[in-house]
Each structure stands twice: as C-alpha cells, then as structure tokens.
C-alpha cells in the first residue's frame, strides 16, 4: 500500500525527517508515537504535499485508487488525494464563506471526474451524504455551515471523518485526531474509524496517547525520535510508553 524509503525533509533551514523507512500493507492499522518535535506530524504533512516542507531525499510510493503504484513526491497535493491519500489534520483549517456541503460535493465530484464517473448534482449529493452521516451515527447540523468555521474541536474532527467517509481513500493518515476530543467524542470518532476500516485500506494514526489506540487497535506501533523511526513493535508497547515515557527507547536506540 505505502512504501517509504529513506525519506528526509526540511522546513526552512531545519532538517526534520532524517531517513524514514516505513511499509504499510492493505488492511493494516499503524500508530506513530514519539516525543514532541520528533517529526510525527511532519511526516503526515510531507506525505500530503504541504508547501511549507521540502523533501531533501527519499521516496514514497502509494498503490493508488486506479491500481497503479504512484510516486507521491511527484504529485501535487490534490493529485495525491485523488490517488487515494487522505490526511486528517490535527487543526483543520477554517474556510469561512465556503459552505461545508458544497465543499464536500466539490471534493467528491473531483474524485468522480478523476475516475471517469458522473458527478452528483445537489439533490443527489444530499441523499448520498445523508446516508454517510447516518451510517456514521453523526448528526448533520454543521453540514449547512461554513467549512470548519465556528465548529467545536469535536465537530471539526467529525467533519474530517465525514470527509474520510465520502472520499473512501486507500490510505488515511490521521494526525492527532484524538487531540481536543472529550471522552464521548473520542469514542464516537474512534468507532467511526473502525467502521470505515476494511481489508483494502489502511490507517496511520499519529498520536501521543493510548486512549485512541484502545478503540482503534493498531497492528503496528512505530516510535519516532529525531526524525526517524527508532522502534517498531506490536501494540503492547503503547502501555509501556504510557508508563515509562520514551527515554528508555531512545537510550536503547542510541546504544
């Protein structure tokens, strides 16, 4: 699904990623943990094509929605999305004036155009989105509002999940999806992530805490430090990290 080889990237003059290697298979769920500043969110942003980051070396290949293997680093941000990459942002951007429902339709219809299928008109899309939000168990009150504007933290994250549901990507990289969520919202978002996961897609969840990972149980946990992965293990390591922190892993990695 995703193959990252020796990926390095910087922002400004600061090198953040220093040789990341990662393989993600279809149907799997991965967690990325690590201390602040270790490069976790930077990996998500680099994969998304964020203009603030510059790749200095390495490769990132995705098995896209058309069945082909694409070099993500050669694609524009919108093309990466069309090929099946979804990034759930830690702080979804507010776009006042752009209606949320219109945005979702524009996004979905871009995907339809990419795949050569007919776009949905307003009424057709309303029916489509009603089915999606119903199956997610989310209400629709904020679909009529502007994109992410005047939404609570929980509502913004729910909106990201609705987008995930609409776009049905091959790979979803969820960057600190649990941040800012109360217990109930976390349960709702986590449950939705589980419902949307299947054998043909994959998740990478960037998180600091075990609480999301108790709901969306990862198959693999990768620990980041100083711009690269220093440890990969099964999910039993999450509890150990929660109890002992990261120092023991960092010391082990350096020894």
């Amino acid at each position, binding site marked *: 699904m995703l193959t990252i080889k020796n990926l390095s990237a910087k922002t400004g003059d600061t090198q953040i990623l220093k040789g990341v290697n990662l393989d993600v298979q279809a149907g799997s769920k991965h967690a990325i943990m690590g201390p602040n500043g270790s490069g976790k969110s930077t990996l998500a942003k680099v994969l998304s094509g964020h203009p603030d980051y510059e790749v200095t070396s390495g490769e990132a290949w995705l098995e896209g929605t058309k069945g082909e293997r694409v070099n993500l680093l050669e694609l524009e941000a919108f093309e990466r999305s069309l090929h099946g990459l979804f990034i759930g942002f830690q702080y979804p951007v507010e*776009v006042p*004036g752009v209606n949320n429902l219109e945005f979702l339709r*524009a996004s979905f219809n*871009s*995907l339809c155009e990419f795949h050569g299928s007919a776009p949905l008109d307003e009424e057709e899309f309303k029916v489509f989105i009603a089915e999606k939000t119903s199956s997610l168990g989310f209400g629709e009150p904020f679909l009529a509002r502007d994109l992410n504007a005047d939404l609570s933290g929980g509502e913004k994250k729910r909106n990201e999940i609705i987008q995930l549901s609409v776009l049905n990507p091959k790979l979803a990289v969820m960057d600190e999806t649990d941040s800012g969520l109360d217990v109930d919202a976390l349960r709702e978002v986590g449950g939705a992530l589980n419902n949307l996961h299947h054998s043909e897609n994959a998740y990478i969840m960037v998180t600091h805490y075990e609480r999301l990972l108790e709901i969306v149980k990862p198959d693999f946990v990768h620990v980041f430090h100083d711009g690269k992965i220093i440890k990969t293990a099964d999910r039993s390591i999450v509890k150990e990290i929660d109890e002992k922190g990261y120092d023991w892993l960092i010391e082990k990695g350096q020894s």
Partner: protein
Amino acid sequence: MKKVMIGLLRKGSRNVLNLPQYTSLNVANNPTTSVENSSPRYHLELTPKQDQSFAISLEAQQEARLCFGFEDGKENLDLTVDLKPGSHLKIFRYGSPGSQFSHSIKGNVSKNASLEIFELYSKPMNGHIKSQIDLSGEGAEYTIHSFTDLDHCHMSHQGLVRHLVPNTFSNQQHRFCLNGASKGNYEGDVFIEEGSSGVRANQLNQNLVLHPESRMHTKPQLQIFHDDVKCTHGATITQPNPQQLFYLNSRGISPAKAMGLLHQSFREVIMNLCHDPEVLQEVQASFGV
C-alpha cells in the same frame, strides 16, 4: 432580464418620473405608462442607451424598486434621486461582462426615507461610478452593498455621503475581486456636518487580489465635524489564504477549483446581504450566480 423603457427616452433628455401617491406603474403588463390602482409599490426597469439622464422623485411614504444594467457599448447614465419623507427606494444596478459605462448618481434622502443600493459588476471592461448622497432629514438612511469582479479590466467607484443633520445612518460595503491585469479604484468619503449628533456611518472596502498584475487603490475617508457620532471605516487588500487553498487541495480539489470556491465565498458575503428575492432572481438571470 426583462427590459422595459419607461416613457419616451431621447438622447440627452431629462425624464422626470414624478409618481403620484397611491397609484402604481405596472410595467410588466404595459411597456408605456399605464396606471392601475394597486398598492403603492413600483418596479421600474430602465435600459440605458448611451447618454441619458433620469430623475426619480418619490412622494411621501412611497416605495419603489429600480433596476438597470449596463450591457454593451459605451453608456453614460446620470441619475438624480429625490426621496421625500418616509419614502423608500431600492436600486439594483449591474454591469455585464465587456460593458463600458460612466454613471453618476446624486441623491437626496429626506426625513425617515431610505435609499438602498445593491450592485454587481461582472468583468466590465471599463466602469466608472460617481455618487453623492445627502442625508438631509433625521432618520434618513443610505445603504450600499457592492461586488465588483474584475478580470483584465478597470473599475472606479467614487462616493461621497453627506450626513447633514442629526440621527442619520449610512452603511457602505464594497468588495472588489481582481484578476489578471486589472485596476480597481475605490474612494469613499463620508462627511458629517457640524451639529449632526447621533450619526452612525460605516464604510468598509474589502479586496481580494488573485493575480500579481492586479492593482487596487483604496481610500476610505471620514470628515467628521461633530463629536457625538459613531463612525467606522476600513479597507483590506488580501490574497487567497494559502492554508485554505492547501486544505481544499488536500481534498482532491484542483488549485483552479479551489480558487473558484474562495472567489465564490468572497462574493457570497455581499450576495447574502441582499434580502430582496426579486433582485436575487434578477442576479441569477443576469449572471447565473
């Protein structure tokens, strides 16, 4: 859009439409000036053809709506508006793509009367608007909501609003969106006469620049000669927010479509201020927005 000529129009002539009280001008049924009794509400449509002048005078408590547009060729239109106490006039004016026009409006708004203008200019080749609105009676109100979309073209909007007596209100919101080698000019002047206490005057010009060759000159001004007033004025010139553009891109929306969404959202703020369904219908028919 339905175009109807009111009265006989001759180049350079001055047509005074002095509408008597409690009668109506049903222009939909009769393109000349047949009069039927109905509620005192008028919908007038004018088609400017080259140099023309109009004067509109509303008697006390009358209401009217005036629509006109600049569509092709070179057109000049001078409009004088005289609103007697308690009368209300709504004006919808527009400029179609490629239009060239020079338009002046001079208005006098009396006690408890109101003048409301909603305007939309879609890529006029060259447009120039000059206005002077006098609020001469207590309770007089003037509101203008304006959106100008420029793409390799020019538009200039100069306006003077004079608050001549106490307790008058004006609210001006002008938005320009500039693309290509466009030039926009906004000069707004609000004058508050000495002794005009209780005046409230708001003026805002916001501009979205989409192209490095676009140029916008903006100069909102206040001349205040009395202390007990509440006035605001502001101007912004911005480019599309790159974070917003990236967020839209990250959801598969191409850069061009993302820009289109932001452009639409910038225009919608003005569109949402028009609460007149018939005007909105005209806008839909004229511009497909």
